[in-house]
């Protein structure tokens, strides 16, 4: 600072450069700490494998090969990451308001069920695009209402949203089972209780040239849109204020209740879409396969991405890759399929603990002062 006061011309320039450097320093923190956390959880997991007498090098090379090594494994990874993107959004959007919603799986299940249920009476006469359009709307409505209810309960009754959303997951599962094993059961399928199929002609195909269905692209676009909504609109700004300081938001006259309910409804609609794609692109009908834990992996994805919709995309693909390599690891290394769960849990813990290091390292701090 001392030398800049002498020559004003240089002062402007160097302060501009210093400003840029400062910005870089501060944003570098958000890249370096998560990467260090990733490396650290990799080390912890390697120690875990070594104590079991397995080779970490084998493990990570198999993850690479099974998840990202070939174009086939890439496609497998992308197919698996599509539901993670949607369910992660179900966590990320309410998180902006300081809400922790962990029942996205319930909205996924109901969304998938609603899509299949509404398709059944239409299957015989409706053209494919109409059928799919109605299914999308039904899935988003079902999911949106489900999590929207959680938001309403939170705001108007003070019911804790984390626990309420989780309880509602169990209720959603019983609704699915009730109809799938009862009124809507397809009598021609003796094996697994399911609804009637929507017909292979009506199912969503793959993106041309790949085996990846359109859900992935939809998810990517949705991430972009929600990023814009949360970061570039008054709605997102108001949500951020309400999440930061509820009293201040109320004092400003922000419609906190509406913000909470609408955010939760958007979140639920995202998870409902995941259910729609599971039905319309993967299973072709609704059954218990919808309950595959995608909602719970979505929580991990969102926390890893620090609830940033744009970061959700690479993180979902990363975790999709790990999930895709699960089978290969099971066969080649004789490890149980829960290995992936252990790795996910470890990653989750380390990432959460890494929160404590933000603002602790002088190297990321701007030289100028407090900011």
């Amino acid at each position, binding site marked *: 600072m001392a030398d800049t006061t002498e020559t004003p011309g240089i002062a402007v320039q160097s302060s501009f450069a210093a400003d840029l450097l400062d910005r870089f320093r501060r944003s570098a923190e958000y890249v370096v700490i998560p990467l260090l956390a990733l490396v650290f959880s990799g080390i912890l997991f390697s120690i875990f494998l070594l104590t079991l007498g397995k080779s970490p090098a084998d493990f990570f090379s198999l993850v690479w090969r099974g998840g990202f090594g070939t174009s086939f494994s890439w496609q497998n990874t992308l197919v698996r990451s599509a539901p993670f993107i949607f369910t992660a959004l179900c966590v990320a959007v309410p998180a902006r308001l300081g809400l922790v919603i962990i029942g996205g799986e319930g909205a996924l299940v109901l969304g998938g069920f609603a899509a299949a249920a509404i398709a059944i009476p239409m299957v015989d006469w409706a053209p494919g695009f109409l059928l799919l359009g109605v299914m999308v709307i039904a899935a988003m409505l079902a999911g949106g209402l489900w999590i929207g209810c959680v938001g309403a309960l939170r705001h108007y009754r003070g019911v804790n949203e984390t626990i309420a959303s989780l309880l509602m997951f*169990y*209720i959603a599962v019983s609704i699915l089972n009730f109809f799938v094993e009862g009124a809507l059961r397809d009598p021609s399928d003796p094996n697994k209780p399911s609804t009637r199929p929507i017909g292979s002609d009506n199912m969503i195909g793959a993106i041309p040239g790949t085996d990846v269905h359109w859900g992935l692209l939809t998810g990517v676009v949705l991430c972009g849109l929600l990023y814009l909504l949360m970061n570039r609109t008054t709605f997102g700004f108001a949500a951020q204020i309400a999440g930061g300081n509820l009293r201040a938001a109320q004092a400003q006259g922000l419609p906190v209740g509406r913000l909470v309910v609408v955010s939760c409804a958007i979140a639920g609609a995202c998870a409902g879409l995941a259910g729609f794609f599971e039905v319309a692109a993967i299973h072709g009908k609704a059954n218990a396969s919808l309950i595959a834990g995608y909602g719970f992996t979505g929580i991990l994805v969102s926390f890893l991405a620090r609830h940033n919709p744009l970061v959700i995309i690479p993180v979902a693909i990363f975790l999709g890759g790990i999930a895709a390599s699960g089978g290969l690891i099971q066969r080649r290394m004789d490890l*149980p399929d829960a290995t992936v769960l252990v790795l996910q849990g470890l990653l989750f*813990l380390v990432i959460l603990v890494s929160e*404590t290091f933000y603002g602790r390292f002088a190297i990321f701090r701007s030289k100028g002062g407090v900011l």
Partner: protein
Amino acid sequence: MSGDAGLMTVLLAMFAGAIRVSTPFLFVSLGEMLTEKSGRINLGLEGTLVFGAMSGYAISYHTGLPWLGVLVAGICGSGFGALHGYLCKLPKVNDIAIGIALMLFGTGLAFFFGKAYIQPSAPRLPSISFGTWSEHPGVRQALEINPLFLLGIALAVFLWWALKNTRYGLTIRTTGDSAPAALALGINVDKVRLLSTMAGGFFAGIGGSFLSLYYPGSWTEGLSSGQGLMAVALVIFARWNPIACFWAALLFGAAGALGPALQSIGISRGYHFFNAAPYILTLLIMIASSSPRRSLKGAPGELSITK
């Protein structure tokens, strides 16, 4: 006549179910209650419960001593509790999120190490017959009571007394109600919370071992139906009172037994909704008892979910 008999069967089955199913609820909710009394919430008890079930079963299988399995399950549980308690004292680390992560981690570890124990059968916990006086086989069966159930009742009474009347109880309650006040009294807040979370994990581990060693009585990956998570709601319902935890656990046990009981007399319509009864009940209770304007009555002041 037959209607009466059917009703009797259902009531008896619910009574038996309440006693059988409630034990894990009781232990997990007492553990959660103790942790929450110190001002933290541990959502990871679900993972602790599942890991306790696996470790208890494994130890019982290898040593032939089911009670040793119960003890080891408790010790493993307090290990998870220690991890939670230690990590949450770091600044900016959220106890709810750590709980969710530990749920995933504990379940993952349990499934990982438990693969080998799905097939073999391990010695189970014995039960005490209180029903020898009765001719009725249903009554006899209902009164086959596991010692852990009685232990749970004793624990609930003990915790109720200790929290109210002992120095340790006062320390825990002060820490949970106001960390600054506890600090001013020279209490080491982090240590109290660490120990409370460890004790809570110990109880949850025992609750898990009951699942694998008594009822349903074998280790499978779908063993827990979310008891560890429902315990969180149950504690709210019980207003952080150990004795009320016991009644709430019985109620949840009975609600859980409603579906199978109705099915046994031929009412299978709506079976899945009766299975969901405990969750619906919890949700309704939370809706009825929460309020947006004040924190819950009886809630520890430092608790993040009620703020």
